[in-house]
């Protein structure tokens, strides 16, 4: 009964709405939505807060230098419904995250992107 209601309500939502990304604040203005960067490294902090949650990851670039990534997501109220939680990342966790990079990645003071989809935590794929 419950599943049926959900299925019907998801079906009732048109393609139009499904194609619209949920991210507030930035949207396409500052992110290079055509690109994907895969960030691999260790979590230093996971901040679960309004207006955005963000994950700090120390990754290694091709030359072996540490790159400090900031990967943002929406507010807790938006993503908790999809299974995200404040305890899902711990400092030291090894993660692999697909990221939409910021447009000014080369010149920005910080390396910033936003969660794109795939998240792997300590070898386990995060499935909402």
């Amino acid at each position, binding site marked *: *009964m*419950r599943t*049926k*209601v*959900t299925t019907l*309500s*998801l079906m*009732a*939502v048109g*393609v*139009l*709405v*499904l*194609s*619209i*990304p*949920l*991210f*507030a*604040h*930035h*949207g*396409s*203005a*500052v992110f290079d*939505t055509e690109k994907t960067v895969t960030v691999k490294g260790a979590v230093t902090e996971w901040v679960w*807060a*309004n*207006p*955005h949650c*963000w994950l700090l990851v120390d990754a290694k670039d091709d030359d072996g230098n540490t790159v400090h990534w*900031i990967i*943002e997501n929406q*507010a*807790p*109220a*938006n993503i*908790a*419904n*999809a*299974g995200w*939680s*404040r*305890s*899902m990342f711990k400092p030291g966790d090894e993660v692999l995250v697909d990221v939409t990079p*910021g*447009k*000014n990645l080369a*010149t*920005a*003071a*910080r390396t*910033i992107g936003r969660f794109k989809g795939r998240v792997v935590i300590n070898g386990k794929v995060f499935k*909402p």
Partner: protein
Amino acid sequence: MSKPFLIATIASLVALSSSPILCAQATTATQSSVERSEKWNNDPFGGQARTGGCAPGFPCANPSFYGGKKEPPPRRDLSGIWDATAGGGVQASGSAEYPASYPPQDPRPRAEEPDEQGIINPVPYTALGEAALKTNKPSGTSIRSVPSVLANDPVDICDPVGFPYMENFQFLTIELTQTKNQVIYLGQFEHEWRIIWTDGRELPKDPEPRWNGYSVGRWTDDYTFVVQTVGMNEKSWIDHAGRPHSKDLRVTEIFHLLDHDTMEHTEIIDDPKMYTVPWMAHNKLILHRESPDFDIREMFCSPSETRAYNELVGDPINPESK
């Protein structure tokens, strides 16, 4: 009743109370403290998944819709906790019926466009409305969106959301309560609340402008509640695409209960200064009833948290910053 019969009745009740059926009911009534704490909307995967509505495109672990009861709703009663997320409540590109978006195949960029030419459902602006639109610089995902540090959306700096913006962006979970002379609306997004008067008063003629305006409501039948709102100040926007309004804006809402657990929300924007004709921001947007014990996750706009975010992410990611 004779004494033997009474004793027999009591004896059989005692026997019945130790039966498996009644024991099971007794266990449910006295939940363990672990189960009671899982009613809080924290870490849904940590325990029972008390998730709310499910956002389009995001599958739900465990939707907590009340059960989709198809029985008739209570008469003249909107009370309850209602989820609008699955009905498309996030509205990051503008009001549900009028997203400021291009059709999917359109190759134009999705940001920093000067106007709304070519969007899926054009808004009927007057010349004044079009000019006012252009002074509003939205963040978000509408085609006119700019980097958030360049935006001037009052909501971005933790100003009050105002009405009807509170229904046209992050319309996630609301709680409605009825008293003898009011419907009290509690909105999750930025913790906004407003009062809808049901005591038959008329709308004020020359109202002192307010962020949320002045609302009166009445039942037109047992399952349809109609609300009128006037007196909204000109600082507030209509939606996350920066649609403007004048102080002459009048908003009509129709809350219509379809069944016990389903409600439609229709919202009509009427502002002849800005729009040539009234338009529907919501057209029967569906709200689902949540379980009465559902805990609504807090969502405050905290200036200090916003500042911290802007310093770390929001400002540096602006392409114009070095």
